């Protein structure tokens, strides 16, 4: 990464590496590609073609190290099983990890957006196999692509053979034989190809088509605290797994205590005898080193572990650990201590996703839909509240719904109104409560006002309705009426 030393983006930039005795371009940015420079072109030719070309030496080792750092980021953020796919990719096992990020498509979009914010342009694809996802990410994703389960094989048929992770020489020879797409290769008899090119083609094709399994060997950086246990006899019963989880957690807690840390995220990897892997990830809101609580969180998820023919190795790692020191508390003799519900919050957020659990905190705003904000459930209480002079409805409609009214302007409540096809006669009403929109947000809100009324119909149901505008001046709003909430 060049960081601040990078030339401006409009200047063509290429990286030059040594291929045998010749210096050639190994990477070119968008500006350089527009200027007609291609990967594999001789460096001297490129210099002759483009005048103000910036040329840097390629540093493959530094690139690999950067890729490792990126893999660690993905490991902490997205999934317990992440590996590098050199020279320019990451492979992430997303099974069981997507629901915490709002689904498959949302997870990929989030990933690409975050990388873009860091200055990296990335493409991401999700498919049934490593091979298919690799091919789709490089040749079909714009910039993200999710292929539904079971349709990966069909999706890669039209992609070029270069997508198959084969050596460049083989790809070239195949092209000379008239085989351009993966579909062509799939329809060609296997034996002559294997005789001429070796077993690589068949293996890569089978891996992409899910006829051959391809386990991902996840990265395990040294700085992460990890404990493991190998089983002489594979285990598969839920009770046995639970027992060993408890032992692993005990060992991990001792390790964390020596480091003065608590776990924020735990990854349990179960290596099965058929070379597959089952992973469980749990997170906590604050660092935790309580073995009983961590065990509880992991055993809660035991039903998601598919042991297959048995588990031969279990690894437990504290992927994210933060400093945690013991604190002395002073007990209050009079008032009972405030109950600790952090463990409940952790359990629930691991079950349904962390952003589904929240507290609501007041925001200084008169506009009803803007006066509430979500905060983390374990966040400290600021003690603020809403100024409760005017009654507020128990249910606030997600968006105000237009209603038909008969009303006297400017400052009378409606006599009757029709909402969702039901006509109601107003018996009593309170208002108007005039709310000025926030002029500092946009020009449209400069003059806008809403006049809120609390109305009660003949049955006694109470509603919160408003008129967009003050009833006199056209610039304050459309003067239409809306339903915004329901009082109890």
């Amino acid at each position: 990464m060049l960081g601040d030393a990078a030339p401006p983006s409009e200047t063509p930039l290429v990286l030059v590496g040594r291929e045998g005795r010749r210096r050639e371009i190994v990477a070119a940015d968008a500006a350089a590609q527009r200027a007609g420079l291609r990967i594999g072109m001789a460096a001297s030719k490129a210099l002759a073609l483009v005048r103000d070309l910036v040329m840097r030496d390629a540093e493959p080792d530094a690139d690999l190290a950067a890729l490792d750092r990126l893999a660690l980021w993905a490991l902490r953020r997205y999934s317990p099983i992440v590996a590098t796919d050199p020279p320019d990719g990451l492979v992430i096992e997303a099974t069981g990890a997507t629901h915490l990020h709002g689904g498959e498509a949302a997870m990929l979009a989030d990933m690409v957006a975050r990388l873009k914010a860091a200055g990296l342009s990335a493409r991401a694809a999700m498919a049934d196999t490593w091979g298919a996802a690799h091919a789709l990410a490089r040749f079909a994703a714009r910039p993200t692509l999710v292929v539904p389960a079971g349709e990966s094989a069909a999706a890669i048929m039209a992609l070029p053979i270069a997508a198959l992770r084969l050596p460049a020489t083989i790809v070239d020879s195949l092209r000379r034989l008239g085989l351009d797409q993966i579909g062509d290769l799939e329809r060609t008899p296997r034996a002559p190809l294997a005789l001429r090119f070796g077993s690589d083609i068949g293996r890569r094709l089978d891996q992409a088509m899910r006829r051959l399994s391809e386990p991902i060997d996840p990265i395990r950086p040294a700085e992460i605290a990890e404990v493991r246990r190998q089983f002489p006899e594979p285990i598969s019963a839920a009770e046995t797994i639970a027992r060993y989880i408890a032992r692993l957690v005990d060992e991990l807690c001792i390790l964390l205590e020596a480091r003065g840390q608590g776990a924020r995220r735990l990854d349990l990897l179960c290596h099965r005898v058929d070379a597959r892997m089952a992973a469980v990830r749990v997170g906590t809101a604050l660092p935790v080193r309580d073995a009983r609580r961590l065990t509880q969180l992991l055993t809660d998820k035991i039903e998601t572990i598919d042991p297959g023919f048995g588990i031969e190795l279990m690894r437990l790692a504290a992927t994210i650990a933060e400093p945690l020191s013991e604190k002395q508390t002073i007990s209050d003799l009079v008032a009972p201590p405030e109950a600790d519900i952090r463990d409940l919050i952790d359990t629930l957020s691991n079950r349904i996703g962390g952003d589904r659990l929240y507290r609501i905190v007041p925001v200084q705003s008169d506009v009803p839909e803007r006066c509430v904000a979500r905060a983390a459930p374990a966040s400290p209480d600021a003690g603020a509240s809403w100024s409760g002079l005017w009654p507020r409805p128990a249910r606030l409609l997600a968006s105000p719904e237009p209603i038909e009214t008969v009303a006297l302007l400017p400052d009378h409540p409606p006599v009757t109104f029709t909402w969702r096809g039901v006509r109601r006669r107003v018996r009593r009403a309170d208002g108007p409560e005039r709310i000025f929109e926030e002029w500092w947000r946009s020009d449209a809100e400069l003059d806008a006002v809403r006049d809120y009324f609390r109305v009660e119909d003949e049955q006694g149901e109470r509603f919160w309705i408003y008129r967009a505008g003050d009833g006199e001046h056209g610039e304050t709003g459309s003067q239409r009426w809306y339903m915004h909430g329901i009082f109890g």
Partner: protein
Amino acid sequence: MSTSAPRSVVSELRARIARLEGRTAHQRAVLPFGLAAIDRILPEGGLLRGALHEVAGGGNGAVDGAAAALFAAGVAARGGGKVLWCMTRADLFAPALAQAGLASARVVYVECGDEKALLACFEEGLRHAGLGAVVAEVSRLSMTASRRLQLAAEASGTLGLAVRRWRRQTEAADFGMPTAATTRWRVSAVPSAPLPVPGVGRPRWLLELIRSRAGECADFIVEACDDQGRLALPSSLADGQGAKDVGRRRASV
């Protein structure tokens, strides 16, 4: 004074049944409404804490659940402690709960994707003994599910409030199906207290106690929660009952 003898017999019988059911004393904690008219009807003299209670809205309230939510908020507010509020539709307006006495700092909201996850969260909250109350907005509640919730509440002593809320008015017939809940309430909005000037007075509810384990059914007209979560009896009604009580007390002195 002839009523006192049967009363002691009844209470002794109740204690014996409670022993048979295997409950201990701390689970019999009760949260009274603070209104004699309601507490007198309930066999324990209030809402039993380690138990499941059902609340639904009447009429359109079956769909919007506004009054039922406020009623539950008022109960949870008076119960103290933190409150877990599970729901599938996030249209609750927190300032209204604060006005019913349930400060925003005390509530943790759980937005569940479906009913199944909601019931699981509800039960998990009830099993955890650190909460004051758990409120869940559920539409379907089977006998099995409610039995699980009731047992979880009994084990931890946490107050469970199921706010029944349906997508359509027609589905509200589901409220007739039996569940294991200890009490079942229906809250409907009725015209508010009349004021001498134009305006809406303090909201009033028709509070129906439809089912009460080992107790009688009743209905009351009450005034909605104040900022401490307390209900009140409308002044005209309160006067009438109060006068009767006063008369009896005088007679016994």
